[in-house]
């Protein structure tokens, strides 16, 4: 766990190193268009501006990898830009990387000053991708030396497009690898962060890479105007992304509202679902449940009692653990039906399905009950039995009741984890 603390400093060092090295290389090799290269300067300003703005308007949402699509697309195009209109640009890799890193730093700095969040890991990852692309295309492919002209590769446009797309792929893999190595320092497992990383950003990164390539391909025809024109669809997509985020927010809000319905209707003690959810997530984390499953567990816990709405008379104290097994199952079935109705919380519905199944069915019948369902069962029983009371006596009484069902009703491993958390909390 402690290694995670070093993640950001490592990224900071790599990022600053990239910034300093690229600027130093550009200065020492004299790789810059100078004041005469008016077109080159105009191009520089346009790209630098796009990168700064792109870094400012970042995308981030829970469960989504943070990214700056406009900055990445512009920077990739900058790495590939050789001709603008009829003019050949008079700079090479060090200059490109110096401009890119300075612009990214400016954008990130503006965000920090504006009080917004900046992920150093992701910003550095983006810079790394651009560096990889520029080195492969300019130095390896075009054989361009700093300050020197590019060699003519006599590729027809579609061949060039294929080449650039392939380079972008390599660059994006480098980015994902860098980010996941830094994340893996916390978990000591590289494969999973990398797969998660690649999966969560695949579609968006693809669109970004193609946009970068398209800008580079259109620069000789459209001149600098290629940049804003080809970026525009990406900008529109960012608005759609905002809509996407608000859709997810709507579902979350609806879960909170639904979880409060039973409180408002007087079926459960106030705040019961929230307490179960908070405790269940802690127990789940203790037992190594993945973040995605934890989210489902939280939703399931928030909604686990909603089936009680069907009862004519509330159960005393809303404690389902005291209800007859048949009633418990009916309440659970009603909860599942309501949660399924949303059509988007299938994970939570699956947890709720097994909410009431006694643990012995795992032992005796070999039935598969998800760990998250077993957690919910134990935590709900505990909360029902303490009824929100936090005194040591209420806790001991509840634990005693749970011990009576240990191994029959409840999974001993989950109960141990719960007791561990309760102990550390109170002692």
């Amino acid at each position, binding site marked *: 766990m402690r290694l995670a603390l070093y993640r950001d400093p490592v990224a900071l060092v790599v990022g600053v190193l990239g910034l300093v090295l690229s600027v130093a290389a550009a200065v020492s090799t004299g790789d810059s268009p100078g004041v005469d290269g008016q077109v080159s300067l105009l191009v520089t300003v346009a790209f630098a501006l796009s990168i700064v703005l792109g870094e400012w308007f970042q995308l981030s949402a829970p469960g989504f990898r943070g990214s700056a699509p406009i900055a990445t697309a512009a920077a990739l195009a900058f790495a590939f830009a050789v001709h603008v209109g009829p003019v050949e640009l008079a700079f090479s890799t060090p200059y490109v990387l110096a401009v890119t890193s300075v612009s990214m730093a400016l954008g990130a700095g503006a965000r920090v000053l504006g009080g917004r969040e900046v992920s150093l890991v992701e910003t550095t990852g983006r810079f790394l991708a651009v560096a990889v692309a520029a080195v492969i295309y300019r130095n390896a492919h075009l054989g361009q030396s700093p300050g020197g002209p590019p060699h003519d590769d006599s590729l027809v*446009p579609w061949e060039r*497009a294929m080449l650039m797309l392939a380079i972008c792929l390599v660059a994006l893999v480098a980015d994902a690898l860098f980010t996941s190595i830094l994340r893996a320092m916390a978990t000591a497992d590289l494969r999973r962060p990398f797969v998660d990383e690649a999966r969560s950003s695949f579609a968006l990164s693809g669109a970004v890479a193609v946009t970068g390539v398209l800008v580079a391909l259109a620069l000789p025809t*459209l001149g600098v105007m290629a940049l804003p024109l080809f970026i525009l669809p990406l900008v529109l997509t960012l608005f759609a992304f905002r*809509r996407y985020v608000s859709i997810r927010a*709507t579902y979350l809000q609806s879960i909170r509202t639904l979880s409060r*319905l039973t409180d408002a209707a*007087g079926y459960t003690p106030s705040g019961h679902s929230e307490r179960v959810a908070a405790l269940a997530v802690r127990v789940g984390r203790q037992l190594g449940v993945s973040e995605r499953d934890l989210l489902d567990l939280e939703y399931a816990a928030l909604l686990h009692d909603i089936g009680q709405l*069907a009862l*004519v008379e509330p159960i005393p104290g809303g404690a389902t653990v005291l209800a007859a097994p048949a009633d418990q199952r009916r309440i659970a079935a009603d909860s599942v039906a309501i949660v399924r109705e949303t059509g*988007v919380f299938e994970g939570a519905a699956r947890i709720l399905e097994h909410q009431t199944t006694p643990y012995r069915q795992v032992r005796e019948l070999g039935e598969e009950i998800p760990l998250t369902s077993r957690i919910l069962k134990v935590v709900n029983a505990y909360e029902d039995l303490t009824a929100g009371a936090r005194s040591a006596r209420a806790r001991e009484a509840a634990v005693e009741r749970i011990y009576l069902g240990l191994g029959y009703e409840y999974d001993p491993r989950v109960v141990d984890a719960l007791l561990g958390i309760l102990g550390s909390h109170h002692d």
Partner: protein
Amino acid sequence: MTSRPEPDTSSRLLPYYITLVVTTSVVVGVASWVFGRHPDAGPLVLLVAMGVLSYVLREPDVTSRIGFSFLSIILLASGAILGPFGAWFVGLTSQAVERQRMEWFKRLFNVAMMALIGVAGATAYILCGGVSSLERVSGFSDLALRVGLPLMVADVVQCITNAVLVAGAVALSQPVPFWVFVRRILVSSGVAYIGYGIIGFLFVVLWYPAGLGAFSALLVMAPLLAARWAFVQFGEEQRSHERVVETLVTSLGTKEPPAVERSARVAQLAEWTAEELGLGPRQIATVTYAATLHEIGHLGVPTRLLRRAPGALTDSERRVVDRHSVMGARMIEGIDFLEEARSGVRHQGERYDGRGLPDGLAGADIPVAARVVAVVTALEAAMTEDPVGVHPSAELRRRLGSDTGRFDPAVLEAAWAALDKHGLPTGAGAVSAS
């Protein structure tokens, strides 16, 4: 990105409308072949394939009425690359591969409409001075003036053509006023429809001036798919709202099963009334949500009180039941898109003369959603308890009108007009707000 209607068979005028659209489309197609240029086979085949692909990849009906695809962008590019006949042909063939069964006349209408949209765009392009020999254009200013600008006009023309043709069919098959529907389409997707038209321009630039040829079709798929994703979000947003509202109604249904159907009937009546009042799309949605959820507060009322007949309640019990509007408004607090509908739930018991509950608001101070809910719940209750056939009797009209000061007279009038037009809702279809 293209709107398609799902016409009903209910109207007698509809077949004539479809015949008119189809005939126009055929005539225009023939004319474009005779007078316009003939497209090259290679680009034509490619664009037809992209058109078909866009239709196959379309978002399967977002609501019951409108579906999305990026066909409009393909049609726009076709207008510049192929000319009017080519664009007509791409529109005509776009629905060659059909995954789901659709009645033949709907399909015929859709095909004719797509072809017409294609021709309309291509014609606008030519009229605005768009060039047809794209190989010879070079330089940004030339491209902007002789390709970009004409394409922009063509884009707007396509969007309007689409909206008007669909609204025509809907206005004839379902009694939604024509302009309400045109506005609904333009507000919900018009900006994005026109904005993403830029991809059509970029497609053309890549194809000819940048020299990528047919390969540009492959590259441009990335922004097209991004556009599709963006459009799916429009639909998803609406669907998320409907799902949340439905889930809340289902929750209520577990406690009070008859409430589900009642809520659907009241919501339908409220939506019609709101349309009749000429409200905007957003307000219509607010009114409908408020009507759907008007009884959500029953969740907080003891079941034994809900099961008793209203006449059998004591005064104090009566008060408990009446508090449901306040409780309901509190329950749905915290869901952003229901924020406006919330006041409609809370104030449903207000009287137009200001002597109602809970806050004694009067006249225009009462949110319009609350005024509509008040009228339609009273109507629904009266008509369910005393079924009088499809149309309300004069007796009922007099009874509701006699309680002067209870209802907003304008809303009452609109509700009667809606009932005359549509009859009593059955409560079969659940929520339908847009």
